[in-house]
């Protein structure tokens, strides 16, 4: 904690960007957007500033308009500055995809199928989290499905099977 200011104590917020931590003195009533701008400048992020956002240590996206107090940010918490992207991996190749908080799983799945030129039996394909959880509810938002910026997702056949008969009982 540092000096008092308008009844709120200044405190240091640590921001991590690409493995590097930096501390920023801040007040609880200042906005996430202001902190983001300072962090972008400090880390000399020149490209895609509008889609490089702050995320809480839980992985939740922090909206620019909120104050640190409203967002529940406490002294010593490490925030992450990341591009609003996920990586989708298909057969060993990874591609970055920008996404929106309210974007549906189906939307990202379709973009990935197109990007990797998977045209056959798209109904058999799914996205999987790195934990192995299949994103079965394609109508769900990515946020509700537990997808966070920087996540690695896997595009693959939902059930990999084969054989001389139709189904394995």
């Amino acid at each position, binding site marked *: 904690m540092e000096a008092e200011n308008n009844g709120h104590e200044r405190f240091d917020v640590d921001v991590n960007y690409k493995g590097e931590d930096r501390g920023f003195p801040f007040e609880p009533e200042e906005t996430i957007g202001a902190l983001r701008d300072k962090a972008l400048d400090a880390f000399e992020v020149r490209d895609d500033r509008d889609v490089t956002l702050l995320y809480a240590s839980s992985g939740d996206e922090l909206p620019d308009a909120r104050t640190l107090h409203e967002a529940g940010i406490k002294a010593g918490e490490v925030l992450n500055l990341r591009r609003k992207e996920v990586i989708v991996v298909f*057969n*060993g*190749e990874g591609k970055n995809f920008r996404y929106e908080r309210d974007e549906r799983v189906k939307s990202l799945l379709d973009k990935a199928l197109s990007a990797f030129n998977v045209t056959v039996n798209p109904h058999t394909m799914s996205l999987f989290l790195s934990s192995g959880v299949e994103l079965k509810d394609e109508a769900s938002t990515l946020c509700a499905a537990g997808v966070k910026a920087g996540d690695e997702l*896997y595009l*693959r*056949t939902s059930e990999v099977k084969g*054989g001389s008969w139709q189904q*394995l009982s």
Partner: protein
Amino acid sequence: MAAIVVTQDLLDRTFDVFRSCGRAELECVAYWTGPRGDASVIDRLHHPDHESNEFGYSVDSDWLTTFFHDLYKESRSVRAQIHTHPGAAFHSVTDDEHSLVPAPGFISIVIPDFAHGRVGFESAAMYRMSDSGTWVECDVADIEVR
């Protein structure tokens, strides 16, 4: 130009896996991988965790998650899937719809008789996914064994 090139050692080990795992009564499956940047190289054999019976196999989902994660980290990709049938080699509807990598250029090889014939591709069948996403049967003579 060969559609696919494998070493005799890799082929021998693949048949060993099929014979020991399948015991002439269960289908079995394996994957051949290589460096992602060089499609001409196949240098590793992977035998997935799977369930199987006389007529089919199903690969464990957790194994697939780890497998694809490792491939990505090591900049590798799967070149071909290869599995056995109890009798004749052909691509079933299940083989068509539930392959490991349904993308153009992917190779699927079917070995007859639970791989208990001579090591090689006699009476085997090979399919390649076309640019339009259909499986096209290819001549197994285009598999080069070095």
